């Protein structure tokens, strides 16, 4: 057996609780060629450079170029058109207040979930809270029936497994097979949903997309399905992890938890620091060089796959003072936790609000929370990284 590369080491399940020392090792070679010809970029300046470089493509990644890729796997101008169409049903300029107006409902959902914990001495932050909350939110915004959650939960897990599999040694054809099947099943499901919304449109994104008559024309159905698939998966898988990583970090820093309890506005800088410190998307795996690119003393040859290790860049000692310290007051607020460039996180305003409300309310209502297991067990994906369970003991639940 050949020795594992640093990226493979970082992606091993046993590294999941703390991959950061391996990332620190990776940063000694900011742009590193892998045995398979992939290039891993691990430092802040170099990643930011590539995020804005038009010679880096998001299409034609490991899954190959496909006609109906969601915008996360498309390049301008097609990317721009698809994203613009989706944005017109989600944010400014057409729906500027959509996220803000959801706040009362989001808060109600948060409180409803926490109310249900009353009487339990031991809770699982993931299953009891951090999973159901964003799922409810994305279902509502997208126009997906909440009761179908068990179906797409499995599809989603199967697809995410394939994201990371290609980086670990061994044969993964079964994983890719399952992912392909899941993608098809989810596409079929969303196709049916789109059809239903076309006949009876609501106030949701899918209804908006299938009835759109804006200047860019209507999205064709395959693109609606691809967009729905992307938003459904991205809309809950990442937010779950940000919330859980957040609670875990706060339980490890009780003084921060205490401050959040007394100072609700502290949630705002805290979430930015969380996005830096424990980003829910650890690496951007889908880029390809369209030209020879000189970077960090290396030439990435045209055609190479490029992996952007944003979680590593977020701990880059050349960018941040004391990068391994969790410090929401730090002056360097910029981070790559939501990506950058044209593919900057589509759902960022929603994710920020959800996690603010979640952490703020958990901090206030959980009476004396204690971690029962540290580190907690982690989900398998090295790319969308977060705990599978976060067991916490509480003395009780305080009223809303």
């Amino acid at each position: 057996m050949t020795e594992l590369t640093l990226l493979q080491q970082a992606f091993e399940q046993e590294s999941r609780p703390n991959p950061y020392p391996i990332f620190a090792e990776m940063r000694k070679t900011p742009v590193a060629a892998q045995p398979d010809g992939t290039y891993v970029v691990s430092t802040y300046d170099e990643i930011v450079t590539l995020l804005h470089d038009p010679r880096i493509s998001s299409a034609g990644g490991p899954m190959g170029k496909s006609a109906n890729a969601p915008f996360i796997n498309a390049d301008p101008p097609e990317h721009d058109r698809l994203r613009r169409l989706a944005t017109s049903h989600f944010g400014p300029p057409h729906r500027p207040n959509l996220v803000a107006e959801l706040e009362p409902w989001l808060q109600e959902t948060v409180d409803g979930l926490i109310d249900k914990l009353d009487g339990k001495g031991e809770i699982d932050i993931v299953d009891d809270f951090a999973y159901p909350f964003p799922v409810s939110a994305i279902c509502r915004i997208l126009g997906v029936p909440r009761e179908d959650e068990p179906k797409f939960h499995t599809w989603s897990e199967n697809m995410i497994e394939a994201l990371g599999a290609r980086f670990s040694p061994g044969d993964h054809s079964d994983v890719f097979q399952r992912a392909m099947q899941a993608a098809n099943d989810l596409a079929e499901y969303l196709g049916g949903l789109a059809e239903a919304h076309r006949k009876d449109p609501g106030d949701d994104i899918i209804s908006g997309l299938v009835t759109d008559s804006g200047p860019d024309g209507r999205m064709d159905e395959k693109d609606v399905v691809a967009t729905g698939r992307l938003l459904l998966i991205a809309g809950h898988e990442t937010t779950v992890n940000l919330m859980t990583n957040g609670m875990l970090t706060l339980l490890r820093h009780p003084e921060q938890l205490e401050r959040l309890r007394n100072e609700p506005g502290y949630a705002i800088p805290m979430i930015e620091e969380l996005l830096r410190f424990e980003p829910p998307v650890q690496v951007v795996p889908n880029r390809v060089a369209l030209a020879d690119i000189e970077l960090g003393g290396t030439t990435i040859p045209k055609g190479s796959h490029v992996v952007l290790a944003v979680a590593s860049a977020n701990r880059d000692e050349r960018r941040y003072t004391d990068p391994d310290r969790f410090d929401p007051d730090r002056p360097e607020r910029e981070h790559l936790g939501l990506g950058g460039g044209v593919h900057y996180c589509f759902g960022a305003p929603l994710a920020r609000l959800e996690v603010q409300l979640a952490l703020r309310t958990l901090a206030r209502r959980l009476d004396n929370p204690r971690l029962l297991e540290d580190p907690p067990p982690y989900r398998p994906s090295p790319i969308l990284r977060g705990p599978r369970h976060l067991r916490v003991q509480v003395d009780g639940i305080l009223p809303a």
Partner: protein
Amino acid sequence: MDKARGRIVIVGAGLAGLRAAETLRDEGFTGSLTVVGEEWHQPYDRPPLSKQVLTGFAAPDHTALPRLRPLDDVHWELGVPAKHLDRDANVVRLADGRELPYDRVLIATGVRTRPWPNEEEAALDGVLSVHAIDDAREVRERLAAKPKRVLVVGGGFTGSEVASVCCMLDVDVTLVERGPSPLSGALGGMVGSVAAEMQRGEGVDLRCGVSIDALLGDNGSLSGARLSDGSEVEADLAVVALGGIRNTEWLHDSGLAAGPLGVGCDAGMRAGTMSAMATDDVFVAGDVAVFPHVLYAYDRITLEHWKHAVVSAQIAAHNMLCAERERRPHVGVPSFWSIQFGVNIKSVGVPSVADHVVVAQGSTEQRRFAAAYGRQGQLVGAATFNGARWLEHYERLIASTAPFPPDLGEAEQATGATPVPADFPAPHPMTNQPTVLITGHSPTDLHVQRTVDGGNR
């Protein structure tokens, strides 16, 4: 001298003056700090005055600049302009005769709007500008009352933004631009022609290549204008947007290198004298500064950009307090933005020094593109229409003096993208250069005297 103490006077209470005051306190200056401002208002933000304030989206009094730190220990002298800088006595003399003694002084007096040159016509009711908050408020009120037609005088960024607001408000608008197209002064003729098409498409009655011979009045109120092609335009509101005049008259006999082009300084924002020597205690920031830029062959440039005001002020303030070896240069890649006709226009570098331009990405037809500007084979600027997220790439290339045209490999490229002449208007010759006289007998003890006014009248 302990640089953390003493007396600092900042002349100019705009964005640059405010950020300089904050930086001085942030970096530990504990002495007396005075900010002098000609207007009565606390420092406010100008970009909204030609956009959100005019549409009514933002109230004029909601444009106060946010404070990045408390400034309770700053003395504000508002509503009174500085009239004189006496470097022998180390005092700033105000228009009301009072004197403010200083140990170090920062010049941040910016620009004022260039008025319509005919005073009688300029005095007609309905002839306004949007540079200052009180003017913008009045234009907003008149726009809200639905004028029959607005005449915009000048097709630079401000004029084009005003025309855009008129279209948003469904007010008929005629824009008169002496050059071949709007925005051609800042972005050149190729991009200017895209802007022209955009304006016409949105309903602007655009008249390029003509000038206004006279503003016409009826009983003291504006009734229209007569253009150089003989045509007449009826209008009951005119917004004059002919650029700015740098506020340097008060420095006329200060001995500084101050004139219509601005106040000369080094890249550390230290003011220069008329004899081309550096000062130690006079600094410059913002629109009024003329400074050499390392990326542009060390040519002296001026910038009327928001970010330049902030950064030059912060650098000037830092350099006012630190030791010589710790001084910082103002060498960042310039940038600016505009929003008009639903298009987000952004630029990095200095496009206006370019000889060629190429549409590097996107499509000018769809008004989504990135244009790269080159001078003698070096990339010197870039501008995007609805494509701001690519701009950082060009900024990096500019900062590394990359070759022009940029090579994008197989990345999305504009079809048939070949460089064309950038087509900037020829720089206006200086009609009234200062005339100097060197006097004295010993070659090591000569003096420079101004013989003719430097053109400030």
